[in-house]
């Protein structure tokens, strides 16, 4: 029997359950992602607190996979507009798809909170927020790759040279005739510096490839929310 109280959490997704309840998927600070039944949650007041992307202080109990949410209070109600919201759906969908239930992931919790806060504040571009989130998520799930070092020679990446990505290994010097990625962009990604457009383009392509390898055949639907294509 699990019983937790006063835990910080972020709402990732909710869906109706039976007549008056819902099932909320929340990412918690110290207990990972959990699914919990919320009884009588279809009234406006409770439903408002449990809107996706809200931060909560929550308690739950239960055994097995499906918990029961015993207490919850919203401590933030982010107001996201347009592309920020599409980006928030993308963050939530990635976590729902790639982080197993009950897998403890405090760094992913922090990254999700940071991403949602940054999207709402709007001082970083949506694109930079998403690239930073993707990088941390991949690292924390164990799918990260080394951006500062060549995978076969073990030498530091040369900003002047070009590299290609070998799945599950890392970057090696690009073969003759292959465009690959510039060393300067890889070093910028290693430093989380997305100020150059070419770095953002490379990062998007690299992370998308790495994420797709983990996501399998079912595509991420939240990508289709960004109507104007490559805006994220």
């Amino acid at each position, binding site marked *: 029997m699990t019983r937790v109280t006063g835990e910080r959490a972020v709402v990732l997704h909710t869906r109706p359950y039976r007549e008056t309840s819902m099932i909320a998927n929340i990412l918690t600070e110290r207990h990972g992602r959990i699914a919990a039944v919320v009884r009588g949650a279809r009234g406006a007041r409770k439903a408002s607190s449990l809107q996706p992307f809200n931060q909560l202080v929550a308690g739950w109990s239960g055994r097995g996979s499906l918990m029961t949410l015993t207490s919850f209070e919203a401590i933030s109600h982010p107001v*996201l507009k347009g592309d920020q919201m*599409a980006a928030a*759906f993308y963050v939530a*969908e990635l976590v729902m798809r790639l982080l197993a239930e009950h897998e403890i992931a405090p760094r992913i919790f922090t990254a999700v909170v940071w991403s949602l806060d940054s999207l709402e504040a709007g001082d970083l571009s949506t694109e930079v927020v998403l690239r930073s989130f993707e990088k941390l998520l991949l690292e924390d799930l164990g799918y990260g790759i080394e951006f500062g070092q060549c995978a076969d020679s073990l030498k530091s990446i040369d900003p002047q040279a070009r590299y290609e990505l070998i799945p599950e290994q890392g970057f090696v010097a690009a073969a003759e005739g292959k465009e690959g990625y510039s060393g300067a962009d890889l070093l910028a990604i290693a430093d989380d510096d997305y100020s150059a457009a070419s770095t953002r383009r490379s990062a998007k392509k690299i992370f998308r490839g790495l994420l797709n390898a983990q996501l399998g055949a079912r595509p991420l639907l939240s990508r289709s929310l960004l109507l104007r294509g490559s805006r994220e």
Partner: protein
Amino acid sequence: MGLTPLVDKLIEAFQILPGVGPKSAQRMVLHLLQRDRDGAARLAAVMQDALANIGWCDACRNLAEGDVCGLCEDARREDELLCVVESPADIVAIEQAGGYRGRYFVLHGRLSPIDGVGPEELGMERLLQRARELGPREVIVATNPTVEGEATAHYVAQLLEPHVALVTRIAHGVPIGGELEYTDGGTIVHALQGRRSIN
């Protein structure tokens, strides 16, 4: 339970209705079989008729008998306004409230990527086509005030803005007759963001 296999089957069938559990399903079935067999026959006939003849309106995706629904056929309604809603029940609510005389479009849902509902499932292409046919002065997006409803509204606005002069979103805030003290934080945040000048 266990009167006859067919009775059990009927009791189970009634439980697809919202709010109907095994007990009330059993009560309904026994009532129909014991006390109101004529009513039961009527229910069965109308149900069959409805299933055979009620579909989605070709123009607005509202429920319709035949190709086009009554609201789309009604020549007295204004083509100037087009209201986008999540479900036919929302049309009923708006019509009952009165005051709106424009056209509608029904999405039958809202964008929810994690549930597998994307733009295609909501007939967004059809909506674009409908807006082009009608040429409204304004499209009012009346999806629900939830995160998914907002995402849907944003998508609709992006889709239609190149083709329609004005795309608006219904206001949300403190309910009429409500008190701030008893209003939840999310509603207050939105009410403050959506404030407007008094005069």
